[in-house]
């Protein structure tokens, strides 16, 4: 029996108070996600239950019970407090998927500070713009990533502390650096969680738009209500589950459903901190007896590519429930997973700003492969006319997805950018920026983005950010960046560039430019292809017409080019 039971029945008389009651929360009470994910679980008698089973390279393993998580997060919170870090200060987590990342996240929240997880593959410039926007007070990181922090430290007077979790004493610590060893530090038995309220800030995740710098999405402690209930009803997490969320907590899935969801339910979760290979993933499922697996279409398509034969080498019979997030899950992947695992991956649709699942498929509900499913109970969703922003009542007619912004995990603003936040609403609807249609049975079907943002492997890349970085390369005169179709990642970054006089368009220069962006921004933002052209298509007013290049890449009609600059 699934946790949700009947989706239709849950829709009747739904109220978010269902989650509030289960969490013993009443309006006006203190609500601290860190406490809910550790102390409360221990108080419920699960102190000795494994919370985190972590595996690194070479099969190195670490295990932490909920009591270990409680004690270590107390210790981290206390350490930060002694450094002078206080509630609402931003503390960045810039690490691989190591235990300190997961437990450090809980410690930061217990202190009442704001957790700012950043993807550890970010280059120094990507790191800098995000730290600068947040005016981050402290960065918790590892030796392997600290050089990127050191490179930009002079430009960040607001960063008071750089905390190294794996300092081995082989080289001297530098300015503002301090060592902290989570497992060896004296454990703090009692730490009183900061009395955060529903609207107290909790997490700051960064996301990219078409224009401007990355935006800091501000979430609050009340988001727990949505994250708890969606984990229970959609991921169907049950007491004896062994859960594996493959997402990196540098992105929202890795915190909403890689930390908060499972731990607020007292569920054991596993983390594999190695790079991707089909063999290592299947081996991990077999070894850890994973029962619930939450992954991404890019990974699923990569597994499909590795073939069906390899699957036969492993016993994957422990799997009972699968779900996917990050980008639309194509019908072929759903059908394939049903064939090889005996279970279909259920697609879930949501984004950094929504904080929790919005449109999803549910255990027990009829699956239409390729569909995003139906709105979670309590979510008022529709498809809006692109001009009037009125709901479309006609079945199958495409429009913009819209949500009434009244669920607990909805972002509260973009950090220091309220103006951009307000632009996300029309007629009282929040617009996530995607187009879809609704079929006669009420299922939502994804069509595409409504802007130029590139979704590569489930991560949003701003063309503007890549174009700006390209212009910093000595050879590049002008640049335009668009999405290019990709079998595995759905989309990848493609750049069109014109060169400055004296530079020759060749393969070696292309590689140099690719590596320049990879190091400056991130591997995700690195153009997978660079095309040299003599001039970029522009309007007469000089604005680059990305849509002309986009249409060229996707084999689409170019559309109206009356404003295109004459030759």
């Amino acid at each position: 029996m699934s946790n949700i039971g009947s989706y239709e029945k849950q829709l009747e008389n739904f109220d978010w108070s269902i989650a509030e009651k289960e969490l013993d929360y009443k309006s006006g009470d203190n609500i601290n996600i860190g406490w809910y994910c550790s102390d409360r679980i221990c108080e419920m008698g699960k102190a000795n239950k494994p919370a985190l089973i972590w595996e690194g390279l070479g099969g190195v393993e670490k295990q932490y019970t909920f009591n270990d998580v409680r004690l270590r997060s107390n210790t981290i919170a206390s350490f930060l407090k002694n450094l002078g870090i206080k509630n609402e200060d931003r503390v960045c987590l810039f690490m691989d998927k190591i235990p300190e990342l997961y437990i450090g996240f809980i410690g930061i929240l217990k202190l009442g500070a704001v957790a700012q997880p950043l993807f550890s593959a970010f280059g120094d410039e990507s790191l800098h713009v995000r730290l600068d926007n947040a005016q981050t007070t402290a960065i918790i990181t590892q030796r392997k990533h600290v050089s990127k922090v050191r490179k930009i430290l002079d430009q960040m007077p607001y960063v008071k502390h750089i905390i190294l979790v794996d300092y081995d004493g082989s080289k001297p610590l530098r300015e503002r650096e301090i060592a902290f060893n989570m497992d060896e530090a004296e454990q703090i038995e009692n730490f009183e969680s900061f009395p955060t309220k529903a609207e107290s800030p909790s997490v700051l995740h960064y996301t990219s738009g078409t224009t401007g710098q990355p935006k800091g999405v501000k979430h609050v402690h009340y988001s727990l209500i949505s994250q708890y209930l969606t984990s229970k009803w959609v991921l169907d997490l049950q007491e004896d589950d062994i859960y594996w969320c493959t997402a990196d907590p540098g992105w929202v899935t890795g915190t909403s459903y890689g930390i908060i969801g499972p731990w607020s339910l007292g569920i054991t979760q596993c983390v594999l901190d190695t790079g991707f290979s089909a063999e290592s993933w299947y081996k991990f499922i077999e070894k850890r007896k994973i029962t619930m697996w939450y992954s991404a279409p890019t990974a699923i398509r990569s597994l499909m590519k590795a073939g069906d034969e390899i699957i036969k080498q492993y016993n994957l019979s422990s799997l009972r429930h699968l779900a996917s997030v990050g980008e639309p899950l194509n019908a072929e992947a759903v059908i394939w997973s049903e064939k090889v695992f005996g279970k279909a991956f259920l697609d879930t649709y949501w984004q950094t700003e929504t904080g929790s699942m919005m449109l999803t498929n549910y255990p027990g509900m009829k699956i239409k492969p390729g569909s995003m499913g139906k709105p979670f109970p309590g979510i008022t969703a529709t498809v809006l006319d692109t001009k009037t922003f009125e709901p479309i009542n006609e079945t199958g007619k495409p429009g913009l997805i819209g949500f009434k912004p009244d669920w607990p995990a909805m972002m509260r603003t973009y950090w220091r950018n309220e103006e951009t936040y307000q632009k996300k609403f029309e007629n009282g609807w929040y617009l996530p920026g995607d187009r879809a249609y609704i079929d006669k049975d009420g299922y939502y079907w994804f069509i595409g983005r409504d802007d130029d943002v590139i979704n590569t492997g489930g991560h949003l890349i701003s063309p503007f950010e890549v174009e700006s970085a390209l212009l910093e390369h000595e050879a590049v005169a002008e640049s335009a960046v668009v999405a290019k179709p990709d079998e595995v990642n759905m989309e990848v970054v493609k750049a069109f560039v014109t060169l400055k006089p004296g530079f020759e368009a060749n393969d070696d220069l292309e590689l140099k430019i690719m590596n320049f962006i990879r190091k400056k921004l991130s591997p995700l933002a690195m153009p997978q292809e660079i095309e040299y052209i003599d001039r970029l298509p522009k309007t007469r007013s000089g604005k680059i017409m990305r849509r002309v290049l986009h249409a060229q890449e996707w084999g689409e009609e170019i559309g109206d080019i009356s404003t295109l600059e004459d030759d």
Partner: protein
Amino acid sequence: MEDMKEVILEYVIEEYCDEENDDVTFDTPLISGGIVDSFSMVSLKRFLENKYKISIPDADASPEAFDTVKKIEVLVKRFQ
């Protein structure tokens, strides 16, 4: 004549490692070890193609084939 493994190793250290994790050998897992991610693999493939004047089909550029410098050498020699 340059030793291919040495050239590839030098490139990997130069491009994908920093002072804190430069103890990479011919057998160090690059992809499964998280030193080179799947997106960065594209730039490593491009380097090999430019350097050795070969073309590696996407179907052969699997994470397994790129996992160590030794395996990469085998792959490159297949297409020379």
